[in-house]
């Protein structure tokens, strides 16, 4: 059974009921994602990619089919069990950051630990939050509130929050959707670094050039996977930033 796949979707369907109508959003998707992959999940709006993302993130359950995360079937778990899975195995990054307002970067990053089964002291919480904030380049900004941070910095806080519990998967839903192109590249650089450190990343995006930073692109249409291919000409965000800076510098 175990063939190294971290995520296995087997014939997953999702149907929404609006009154009498049944609206199919995902119509039988099977997908395997191995540890260490960096997948961009693409598709137009209404293609079912957000629904699939919600299922992958254990925010929603498939109507039928199975979802094996780390070899454990999570498709039949109840709300509380799903909450525990999300806490232990999944880190979320959202388009609009979703940081708690009027709350310091450190407290935002600590959030998943509050709901964690492990009991950490206040000092341990603080230490871990500061470490993970430093790893996304926010050392020295631990006490800043979201309103005092730029969009890119806010997204880094969100990434720090996603990473604090050492999740199996980082799920990013349009992580660059609210950022300008330069900041988007910075965030992609963070993602690529994390991925090189072995973190599996699944990222929803509709931008072709953002998808080019991933290793593998999965394209959906009408609730089905239409294309699934490895990225041949992969962009290196770090290199681009380097070149960009060189170009901007006066000769």
């Amino acid at each position, binding site marked *: 059974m175990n063939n190294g796949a971290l995520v296995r979707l087997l014939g997953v369907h999702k149907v929404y009921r609006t009154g009498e109508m049944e609206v199919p959003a995902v119509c039988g998707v099977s997908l395997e994602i191995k540890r260490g992959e960096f997948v961009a999940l693409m598709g137009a709006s209404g293609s079912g990619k957000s629904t699939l993302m919600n299922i992958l993130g254990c925010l929603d359950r498939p109507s039928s089919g199975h979802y094996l995360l780390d070899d454990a079937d999570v498709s039949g778990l109840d709300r509380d069990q799903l909450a525990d899975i999300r*806490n232990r195995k999944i880190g979320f990054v959202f388009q609009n950051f979703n940081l*708690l307002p009027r709350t310091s970067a450190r407290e935002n990053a600590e959030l998943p630990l*509050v*709901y964690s089964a492990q009991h950490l002291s206040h000092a341990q919480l603080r230490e871990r939050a500061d470490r993970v904030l430093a790893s996304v380049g926010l050392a020295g900004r631990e006490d800043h509130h979201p309103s005092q941070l730029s969009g890119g910095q806010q997204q880094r806080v969100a990434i720090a929050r996603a990473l604090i519990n050492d999740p199996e998967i980082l799920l990013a839903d349009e992580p660059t959707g609210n950022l300008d192109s330069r900041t988007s590249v910075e965030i992609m650089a963070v993602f690529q670094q994390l991925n090189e450190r072995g973190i599996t990343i699944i990222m929803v995006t509709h931008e072709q050039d953002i998808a080019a930073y991933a290793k593998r692109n999965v394209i959906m249409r009408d609730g089905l996977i239409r294309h699934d291919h490895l990225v041949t000409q992969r962009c290196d965000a770090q290199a681009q930033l380097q070149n960009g800076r060189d170009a901007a510098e006066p000769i």
Partner: protein
Amino acid sequence: MRIAPTFNVAYRALRRNKMRSVLTALGIIIGVGAVIAMVGIGNGAKAQVESQIASLGENVILIFSGSTTSSGIRTGWGGAGTLKIEDAEAIRREVPGVIGVSEEVVSTTQVAAGNQNWFTRIYGESADYFDIRQWPLADGVPFMAQDVRSANKVCVIGRTTATQIYGNENPIGQILRIKNVPFTILGVLTPKGLSPQGVDQDDIVVMPYTSAMKRVIGGTTLRNINVQIGEARQIEAAQQQIISLLRQRHNIRPGRDDDFTVRTQQEIAEAATATSRVMTVLLGAIAGVSLLVGGIGIMNIMLVSVTERTREIGVRMAVGARGNDILTQFLIEAVTLSSVGGVIGIICGIATSKILSIYAHWPTLISISSIAIAFLFAAAVGVFFGFYPARKAAALDPIEALRYE
């Protein structure tokens, strides 16, 4: 359960919205404060009435001359002059269980000593009076049965009368002229303060009733007779016996009204405290309504808070908060608001009653039980009115909550 960190989360959330938290708690502060102060005022009034009734003496039966309705003419207590000295002696002699009887006549007059004079009340009593009313002397000695028999020109005076006439001088042994009759002052009574009707009970001269009737007031009838019974269980029987004895002595035929009125201390106390008990309940109820309104304020704010923080709830759920964690968080927020408000309200309520008793001279009585009840009620208001919004928050779908704008 992850209670400790959830407490922390709730505390941070309240701190993020300081103004709103303070205003919400204010509703509870005012509610609890009002309950404490109002019940304090009510209880204080009741306690004062009770202590004044108790100061009449223990197991006392009062017999007033005249009846409230006497052959169609309403004379008022003590008005008709139907009680004779012999009636009192008959009671002393014939009613079982009687341990003290004081014949009472009352008048007001000018008294003088040296170049001072003062208008005061003259009470003619028997030597039992001080025991019946449990009114010991602060200084000196009371008059004796012998003084009563001989109608001696002796008296004891109240504290107010003493200071008005003698200032800081010791009045004992001095001569007090009452209607130009010189009375020797034997003692000074301990201060009793104001009566329920607001009369200064220490503005008084007490002398043997024989002396009062012979030398000061004149007349041959008593205003009333104070009777003290040995044991509480004998009071009812004694009351009946006094009634039949006096009817017999006054030749009142069956079917005719009494020409006297008998009241036990118990009856007087019940009538007096009934009013203040009703007042306490009324005040408490009105204050309770304001506490209820405070609770609705909490629910209102918590509902707004849940709507406003829908995204936050979504994020918390996404990172692993269970429904119960969210429920607990919002419940703790509500209960924290209400119980912190409750504690501050208790302090405010106590302060208000202290201020009222110091500046307005209202008696107040804060009981531990009213504090405990008010606090528990406030906390319960938090749970009750916080539960609905908290459950609403906990039931949110994380996907919907994250998408909420």
